[in-house]
């Protein structure tokens, strides 16, 4: 009791940089606004909420940009537990943009079926807030809190269609497994804290080594912690929740989960690996190597067998996650730290743009066909050529065919693998190469439906996508093309050479 009082006595209020926190603050204000509006306006005016939430996100972009342009590159608070640096800014930008697109996707979708839209927007914004925090957290506690902050609303979003059994199932599975995983992770964290006697990542990095008496505990801790996030990024064999949840959840939510929350998981992984575990690469490198190889392969082969488009995309996004993990498997090796980080960030950006595009098309088409089957895309090109071409673009980009965004992302990933000039790297590169071919098996299958098959039910009434969807499609397809043809643009954001330093700061 004594020392507690002593510590309490010497407590001083931390100084808070409100400018650095501006994005989060804006979002907080936005979500409160949504909550209140939802209470006071009547059903007919619900569209206001859409406007508000979308503008919240756009508004939050402003401080992000300003912070990015301000000359002080690193702003650290709570003695390094919450850091705003280029890395976190880029990620926040990504989250906000992805969130904005998701809002666009949702706006028409949530009107179907009489559910309370207010909750939807509220949960969406909350989850986004958690992600923004995740981008800046540099402490076990804040990481944990951010993780739960973004997860718990996501559980509810997945189950948002209350009267839809599938949606419920999706929610429950996601919830139970998610909580279980985070519990395991917490156990690892507790061990980590016990050894390092600090929850601050930088301190952990200092004490955490794979030598010495505590080596075993370290290994255990590292593995458990990584498992927690491997679950988030749905890496095989921690992916099992993803297909079911993606299929059951409302499609915009699926888009959100498969892009934003996955990205959040990767952010956490990156932060941990680069700031907390640099010394213990012998533990996580092989682990991530195996994860990545498994994830790519299993995701692909299972995707080959799907009939439901969303489920197929779910598996595809699993295997894409494998590609993101690829460079991390050599991140600890001399020469590839920077390139690995760059490729992870770039991959996340490109993948976000492309995958959201895919979902936009799926939404537009399913709004007409009312079917989740792949075959429902039959003859799309004949009655909705523009949608067909766009879908082809996105799928080709996912398959990594130049000159589309996905290509440069994969390329950079391979590059950093080979840059390590280690046999592990080469082996993984070969596996990745083969997988990128296999992947075309199912992407090509969809293309075949679109171009070469007749419409399933000779119904060829053209599709009129709502404005919001069109906007989303324009954004995503433009980004996909630009990243592919002028990769420098994307790399400009991903190439944060000093990022490793920025994190450890």
């Amino acid at each position, binding site marked *: 009791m004594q020392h507690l009082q002593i510590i309490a006595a010497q407590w001083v209020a931390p100084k808070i940089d409100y400018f650095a926190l501006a994005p989060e603050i804006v979002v907080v204000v936005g979500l409160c606004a949504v909550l209140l509006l939802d209470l006071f306006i009547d059903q007919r005016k619900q569209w206001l909420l859409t406007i508000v939430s979308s503008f919240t996100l756009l508004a939050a972009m402003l401080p992000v940009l300003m912070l990015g342009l301000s000359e002080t590159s690193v702003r650290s608070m709570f003695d390094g537990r919450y850091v705003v640096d280029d890395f976190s800014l880029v990620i926040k930008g990504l989250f906000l943009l992805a969130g904005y697109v998701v809002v666009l996707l949702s706006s028409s979708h949530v009107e179907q079926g009489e559910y309370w839209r207010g909750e939807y927007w509220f949960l969406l914004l909350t989850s986004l807030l958690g992600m923004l925090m995740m981008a800046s957290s540099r402490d076990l506690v804040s990481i944990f809190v951010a993780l739960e902050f973004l997860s718990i609303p996501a559980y509810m979003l997945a189950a948002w269609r209350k009267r839809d059994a599938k949606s419920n199932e999706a929610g429950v599975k996601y919830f139970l*497994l998610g909580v*279980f*995983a985070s519990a395991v992770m917490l156990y690892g964290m507790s061990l980590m804290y016990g050894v390092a006697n600090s929850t601050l990542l930088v301190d952990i990095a200092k004490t955490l080594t794979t030598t010495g008496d505590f080596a*075993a505990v370290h290994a255990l801790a590292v593995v458990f912690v990584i498992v927690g996030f491997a679950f988030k990024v749905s890496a095989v064999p921690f992916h099992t929740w993803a297909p079911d949840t993606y299929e059951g959840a409302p499609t915009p939510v699926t888009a959100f989960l498969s892009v934003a929350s996955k990205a959040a998981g990767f952010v956490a992984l990156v932060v941990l690996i680069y700031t907390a575990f640099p010394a213990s690469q*012998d533990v996580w490198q092989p682990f991530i190597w195996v994860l990545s190889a498994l994830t790519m392969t299993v995701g692909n*082969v299972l995707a080959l*067998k799907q009939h439901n488009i969303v489920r197929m995309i779910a598996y595809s996004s699993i295997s894409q996650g494998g590609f993101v993990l690829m460079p991390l498997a050599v991140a600890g090796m001399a020469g590839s730290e920077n390139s690995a980080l760059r490729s992870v960030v770039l991959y996340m950006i490109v993948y976000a743009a492309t995958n959201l595009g895919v979902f936009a098309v799926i939404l537009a088409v399913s709004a007409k066909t009312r079917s989740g089957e792949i075959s429902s895309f039959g003859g799309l090109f004949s009655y909705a050529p523009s949608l067909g071409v766009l879908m082809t673009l996105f799928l080709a980009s996912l398959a990594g065919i130049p000159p589309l965004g996905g290509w440069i992302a994969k390329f950079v990933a391979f590059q950093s693998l080979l840059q390590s000039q280690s046999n592990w790297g080469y082996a993984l590169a070969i596996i990745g190469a083969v997988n990128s071919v*296999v992947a075309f098996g199912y992407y090509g299958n969809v293309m075949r439906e679109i171009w070469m098959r007749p419409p399933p039910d000779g119904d060829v009434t053209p599709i009129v996508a709502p404005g919001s969807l069109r906007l989303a499609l324009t954004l995503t397809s433009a980004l996909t093309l630009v990243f592919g043809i002028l990769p420098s643009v994307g790399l400009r954001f991903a190439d944060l050479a000093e990022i490793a330093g920025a994190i450890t700061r």
Partner: protein
Amino acid sequence: MRIFAAESEILAPLATGWFLENAWLIPVVPAIAFALIILIGKRLPMKGSELGVLSMAISLVLSAGTAYQWVQRVNGASEEQFVSPVVRSWSWWQSGGFDFGIGQHIDGLSVVVLFVVAFISTLVQVYSLEYLRGDRRYTHFFAALTLFSGGMLAMVLADNMILFLLGWEIMGLCSFMLIGHWWEEDANSRAALKAFFTVRTGDMGLLVGISMLYFAANDWTQANLGLSGFSIRGISAWALSGEPNSSVITIAAVALFIASIGKSGQFPLHTWLPDAMAGPTPVSSLLHSSTMVVAGVFLVARLYPVFFVGLDILGSGGNLIVIIGGITIVISAALAFVQNDIKRVLAYSTVSQLGYMMLGLGAGAWLPAVFHIFTHAFFKACLFLGAGSISHSASHHSFDMKKDMGGLRKVMPITFATWIVSTLALCGVFPFSGFFSKDEIIDNVGYNGYNTFMVVGLIGAFMTAAYMTRATYLTFFGEPRGASAGHAAHDTHDSHQTHDSHDTHDSHSAHDPHAAHDTHDSHSAHDSHAAPHESGLLITVPLMILSVLALGSGFLNATPFGESWERMKLWVEPRASVVFEESKSGGPGESLNLVAGVVSAEDSHSKSVCGSATPEEGVCYAPQLNHAPFKWSKAIMSMLIVFAGGAISWILSMLVFTKRDPRVAGLTSRIRLLGLGHSFLVNKYYLDHFYEKVVVRSVAYPISRAAYWFNQNILDGVLHGAARVTTKLSDWVYKNVDQRVVDNTVNNSAVLTKSVGTAAQPTQSGRVSQYGALLFSATAIAALVLVIVNT
């Protein structure tokens, strides 16, 4: 610059002239004509044929001029001086240090063959004006014919092997087009395919041979002569320089010889030639008797030094060439007995004559062989055209001697006369040209020590006489049969169904469901049911010219009358003297000033080292060859053999045509006095049958039947079998290897991945607790492994 050998003198530069310098125009003219015919031929009054004839006439004039000036050149040169060929060449294209040139190489050999080809082609084209009048592909025919002549001429005066190959292949193509000229008939197109394919198989040897020679010779020729390894002069000189590694040059020679086997229809690749008779008669007479088929022989004669060294001619008692030649002579002569189709008789006789040429070349009788090319061209062309004339005017376009001919000597005297002359020439009866060439070959073969093959040659001569007599008898003597007797055409056709002779176009277009070439029918209408008659001038005039030559051409090299008559030897045979070049810079294109070592004086014969040893200085372009001194004794002997052959065959014919009852033997002498002929009418089929029996028993049973069987079943069988096997093999490979193995591995890999997916699916059971179990067990395993590894 090299220092001249001690005793050697500068010689006067050789005479040259416009024709010699511009001989390259000879093939160019027909080539242009070909293009013109293709482009505007159809619009011309005579459907482009006039262009063909005109161009050939021009080439003829040019080559005649060339020949004349060549003679001047030779006469201008001093005794024993090597008369250097007139070589001009232009670089065609270079690549990777290779220089492919085109150019002319005019020497005795090329002059002779040029003249022959141009001459025969001209006559044949004139002949065709009448023979193919009204054919629906008249223009195409002349185009192809002209292109053929162009190709052949180009090959003949080629100064390097690439151009040679070019002409060679063009000929092959044209023969394909011409044999298949009446391609509505499946048999014709198949024959065309067979011919082209067989020849092409031989060409493989040509490709390989040329490549080998190039790489083997190039360095030497560049160094010593400044010539490319493709140039014929270079290769010849290199072959005699003692430079070449014996195995390389041997293999190259064999490879090249394979090519000439294919082209010249030598055993065992001769089977295409008789089938090729499916083509129109002018084609048969031009391509497959007098010119194209001698291309193979020409190749050997052209690169003679290579074969001389490579196959060690004169060195041993036998070599590949003589063996093949010998076999060909006998085999094909025997085959000629059992043919009913007059053209096939001639075809086999051509093969055997080519065999003679090969035999001669193989046995070192270079000059007689070349001379035989010369003479043979005339009389064989004459024979073929004669056969054509018969079928054209007498036998309703049938070539079957037994069914549709006989007793024609009365109705077509000119054809008959020319035929007889040529036959005598072919048999090698004394004053006729064949005697001077063929006999010389046999003679020299013996003289060079190939005695067995001399015997073979004599046997060949005997058989030649025999089968030619048979053919002559069947065609011109006895009573007219079938079509020649004015019977309606249709029974001709019916009879055609029964036997295996190659039908010609009209006999089929008659029962061709949709008259494939109606115009031609109209043409055949003008004589179809008319009585046999002599052909028109356009046909007979060429016949007469040819027969005159068949009679006279022999005197160009009439050895019996002494040196002074051996003009061919003087003009054509390259002299085997060691040549010192004044300047090596003299690459192809300019004719070199040459200096010949004066051969030590005691006798001017066969003392040159060329061929026998390596010249210590200078180069040889031709090996030293021997010439058998002419002996009347030997000549008489061979003449006797020939006459014997003719006589026996004749007597047999008599026997056959006069014997009324086979069982009554010994009465023949009496019945023979009752004139010939009428007994023919009674059961002629039976007599035919009997004739066959007698002939078969007495003359040709051992060989010809066997040979024919061998030919049809083994050789041809092998050929077709090869084709069939290849097809089968390809089917098998395609079905089993390509589709089953290679392709399926690909498709199976896809299936495999899918099945892996199926295997992985159970993990996705949909049950939360199992998910949890998987999650934690994976964690536990990972933790365990990594903890163990890292501590």
